[in-house]
């Protein structure tokens, strides 16, 4: 019986990284802007997507991949807005992985402008998994508190934009949007910040304009 030590040096996230790179290339080839939405449960990801569906109707084509542990509810809400949606139920897994997106990608219409991926509600695990998106949004709702960026730095470190949701509740809860933004910017300088109320409509024009600009950049090849 002999014993030997083998140096393996195998990155366990390598499979996900490869799958994500393939998705990114495919989306860019088709001229589709992929956006991955991360947040805690209940911070308003689906409601924001419903509101964007309203803004883009008749002007831009969007589709949504929904990630949840159980139920088709979110996909049904999106479809009710006339937007194609696919539900991925992870059956317990706390995040989406690129492989899961890859399986749905073949069904996604080729003539899209935006593909939104609503991750499983969780401000921790989804941050570690690239899904091949071009933009990563982190949503933070007013009732969650303005101290979250420093407590969950990983999600903010990998984000391109911070969407402060439920702005309509700001007068009623102890939440300082400027403090939340400052904390997030200390972790991720250059982060785009939006104050949004999907119910009232605040900030939606700015957010839509940001997405359209990113889409144009992607299509002009300068992304």
């Amino acid at each position: 019986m002999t014993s030997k030590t083998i140096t393996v040096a195998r990155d366990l996230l390598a499979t996900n990284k490869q799958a994500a790179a393939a998705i990114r290339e495919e989306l860019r080839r088709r001229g589709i802007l992929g956006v991955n939405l991360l947040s805690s449960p209940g911070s308003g990801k689906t409601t924001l997507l419903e509101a964007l569906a309203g803004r883009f109707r008749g002007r831009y084509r969007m589709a949504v991949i929904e990630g949840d542990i159980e139920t088709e509810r979110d996909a049904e809400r999106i479809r009710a807005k006339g937007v194609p949606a696919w539900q991925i139920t992870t059956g317990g897994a706390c995040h989406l992985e690129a492989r899961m997106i890859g399986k749905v990608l073949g069904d996604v219409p080729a003539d899209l402008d935006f593909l939104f991926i609503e991750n499983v509600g969780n401000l921790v695990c989804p941050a570690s998994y690239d899904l091949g998106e071009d933009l990563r949004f982190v949503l933070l709702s007013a009732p969650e508190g303005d101290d979250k960026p420093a407590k969950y730095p990983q999600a903010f470190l990998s984000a391109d934009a911070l969407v402060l949701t439920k702005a309509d509740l700001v007068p009623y809860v102890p939440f300082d949007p400027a403090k939340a933004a400052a904390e997030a910017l200390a972790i991720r300088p250059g982060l785009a910040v939006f104050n949004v109320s999907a119910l009232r409509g605040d900030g939606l024009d700015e957010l839509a304009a940001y997405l359209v600009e990113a889409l144009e950049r992607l299509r002009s090849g300068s992304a």
Partner: protein
Amino acid sequence: MHELSLVAAVFEVLEEQAREHGAARVTAVVLKVGAMAGVVPDLLESAFDTYKKGTLAEAARLEIVVVPVRLRCPDCGGEAVREDTDFSCACCGSRRVEIVEGRDLVVERVELET
């Protein structure tokens, strides 16, 4: 909180290595876990202990090496290990730092018995 699925990925690597080297048993595994890999070493250990029962790594010892977060500053070229939750350059204070190490999860070494 996805340590168990990561451990499943570790075992895929162990089985592959054992097959490749004609080994009957895995006696030790060294994992390098980035401080910001989103993985809790304690949970990884529990998951490993649960998973290994009845496998070729049943008696394997797990060693976890935590890799600190290393930042590189594009403004001054400085590189330093991050000591706290401050993501700024230790040399010039710039906030445009990049994380060059400390986010990965790597099966570094395995010890096999043939």
